[in-house]
């Protein structure tokens, strides 16, 4: 009666490239369809893109006709215009100054991300760095030629607007967050009103307000220049968002910490300054990074009130009648700059989130 049971075939490979593909690409009919679709998408977009961006592209042309002849991307345009894009209308011979200023600011941002500077040296770095940037950009002393800030532009201006924006919004934001959690009804109402009003409207309307309404607000004969007005709008805007981020951190601190500080007899300022804020700010470092990225991207909106940041100087470069029609190349170039900055910062913040996730989770 009994027949020899046929032995089962050995299990198919469970490791190696074939098994990996079977598992990750072809495990079910739906998966196979998805794989085919994805491969089709890549094949449809990647080869034409490479052909446009590399194979048919022109890197060296001197005239736009020559550049256009190849039918691909015209990177020679970037080669011709990169200084205008990066530094705007800053006097050509002096452009080493904004270059160094930009490097200082990038250095400051990197230093703020390094844990070993998270003590009293950080404020010193910032104050020193910001003074150095101001001296380099304005000049007028140390034998540097004075350059009016209407001539500033490009990447240094984008960096200035965003780093100054966050740095100066920070104290306001913390105060607003503390005010919002305060038990004093009048102060709480004022803070809530400010935060909600600012967060409810687009940044553009703040910029418009700063450019058309600030001159009306000020006493007669007293005026502040366009750049400073835009900077004020960005600070006011960033402060409202920063306040909400910090509030999240304050809420995450267990009640026992507040009670512990109270039981030691610490005053409000001591309790907040020594016990609560250091812990709260540590928790919110990753969202602060995202906020910085958002502000960095949002400074591009100053284009709308005619300030020559990276984006606007790119648009200026595009208006040259001898080199018309290469906006795609220019936008790809500028996107790459923004991407490198933002992606770098977001990767850093993810990394930090893992490193800092200590002891706050309950």
């Amino acid at each position: 009666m009994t027949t020899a049971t046929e032995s089962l075939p050995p299990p198919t490979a469970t490791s190696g490239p074939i098994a990996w593909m079977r598992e990750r690409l072809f495990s079910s009919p739906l998966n196979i369809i998805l794989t085919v679709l994805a491969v089709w998408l890549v094949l449809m977009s990647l080869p034409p893109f490479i052909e446009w961006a590399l194979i048919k592209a022109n890197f060296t042309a001197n005239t736009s006709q020559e550049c256009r002849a190849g039918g691909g991307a015209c990177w020679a345009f970037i080669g011709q215009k990169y200084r205008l894009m990066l530094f705007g209308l800053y006097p050509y011979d002096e452009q080493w100054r904004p270059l160094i200023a930009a490097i200082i600011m990038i250095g400051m941002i990197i230093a703020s991300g390094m844990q070993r500077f998270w003590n009293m040296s950080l404020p010193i770095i910032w104050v020193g760095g910001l003074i150095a940037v101001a001296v380099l950009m304005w000049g007028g002393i140390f034998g540097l030629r004075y350059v009016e800030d209407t001539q500033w532009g490009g990447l240094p201006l984008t960096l200035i607007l965003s780093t100054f924006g966050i740095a100066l919004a920070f104290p306001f934001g913390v105060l607003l967050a503390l005010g919002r959690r305060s038990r004093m009804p009048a102060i709480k109402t004022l803070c809530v009103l400010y935060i909600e009003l600012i967060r409810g409207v687009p940044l553009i309307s703040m910029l418009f307000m700063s450019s058309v309404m600030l001159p009306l607000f000020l006493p007669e004969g007293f005026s502040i220049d366009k750049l400073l007005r835009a900077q004020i709008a960005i600070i006011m805007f960033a402060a409202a968002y920063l306040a909400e981020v910090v509030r999240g951190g304050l809420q995450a601190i267990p009640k026992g910490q507040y009670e512990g500080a109270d039981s030691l007899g610490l005053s409000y300022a001591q309790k907040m300054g020594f016990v609560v804020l250091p812990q709260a700010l540590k928790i919110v470092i990753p969202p602060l990074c995202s906020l910085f990225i958002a502000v960095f991207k949002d400074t591009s909106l100053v284009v709308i009130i005619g300030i020559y940041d990276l984006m606007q100087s790119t648009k200026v470069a595009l208006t040259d009648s001898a080199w018309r029609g290469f906006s795609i190349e220019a936008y790809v170039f500028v996107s790459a700059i923004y991407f490198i900055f933002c992606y770098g910062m977001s990767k850093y913040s993810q990394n930090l989130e893992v490193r800092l996730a200590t002891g706050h989770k309950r």
Partner: protein
Amino acid sequence: MADPRVNGGQSAPPRRLSWNDPDVRSVVYQVVAVALVGIIGWFLVSNTLHNLSIRNISTGFHFLGREAGFAIGESPIAYGPENTYSRAILVGILNTIRIAVIGVILATIIGTVIGIARLSKNWLVAKLSMIYVEVIRNVPLLLQLFFWYAIITEMLPGPRQALNVMPGVFMSNRGIKVPAPTEHFAFDLAAIGFLLAFVLIFIMVNLAKKRQDATGKAFPVYRGGILLLVGMPLLGWLIGGAPWELDVPKLQGFNFVGGATLTPEFAALLFGLVLYTAGFIAEVVRSGIQAVNYGQWEAASAIGLSRSQTLRLIVLPQSLRVIIPPMTSQYLNLTKNSSLAVAIGYPDIVSIANTTLNQTGQAIEGIMIIMAVYLSISLSISVFMNWYNKHIALVER
């Protein structure tokens, strides 16, 4: 000095005004804060009134009744330069609402698909959607808008060489032309059928829930819903006589006539906003799904549910609770970001109010209108989403 209130509440000595009393201090702080804000406010207002009187600008909203005198590129309601400023502003508000509503719907669909795709077991799909999310989120929206606008107006050919992607659909630097149905009452019937379908779905969902509670039998709500959504308009259309004529765009002279147009500005703004917000929504959806405990997946597969059933019946309902609040912020962001329309020339409320304030000099009123519009849109979205959030929130005993 010890706080008199700590003496067990009995025979508290008469309180004197002292700086050590927290209540006194808090009153002082608040009075100072309010006074400070009041003084700053008074300073700004008096300066403003003074400056306005120098420049001979009268305050108030009287200018709204005057003739606007500028044309608007696209408008959902009839508008001409001879209409008043108030009508121009209404056009702007409607244009903003139109881009926001269409944008929110499309961004939700695309974002959800990409968010789920990032978690796909399929390596290729997951990596492609990751690249999409990273690139989109790390480039400023304004740049993306300029990019799409440049692609449409510079890369696409003129109307004579328009790309004919599908029969009747033409893409040129004047915008995207699509065939539109000619006026016919059958289409009104179809629209009524569409609305009716929503009512029927609502009733069906309730009945199905009751039956499942009573008998344990599930009703194919999703299939039924799709059937109703497709079937009811179709029925309306058939009853109306099933008209086939479409108003197909035709090249005449230098431009197209007939059909409906997506202007380059609207198309670029919609593309940019939807693709950008979808990148953020994808992250919201992904983190929402990952927030659901993995044990839920395992338990679901232990009782024999398929992966898609698990996602639909077990995971998504739970992750929705995590997803809704950040999703609300994304909707608000999309609406606020639509104000970037001013940069590429789509006539939204910001761009029209800006033209108005440049023509009339009524800067304060113009900015106030912009802010009031956005605040009311933001508030309505928050109220609706909070209601929905409460609706799906976990009911705890």
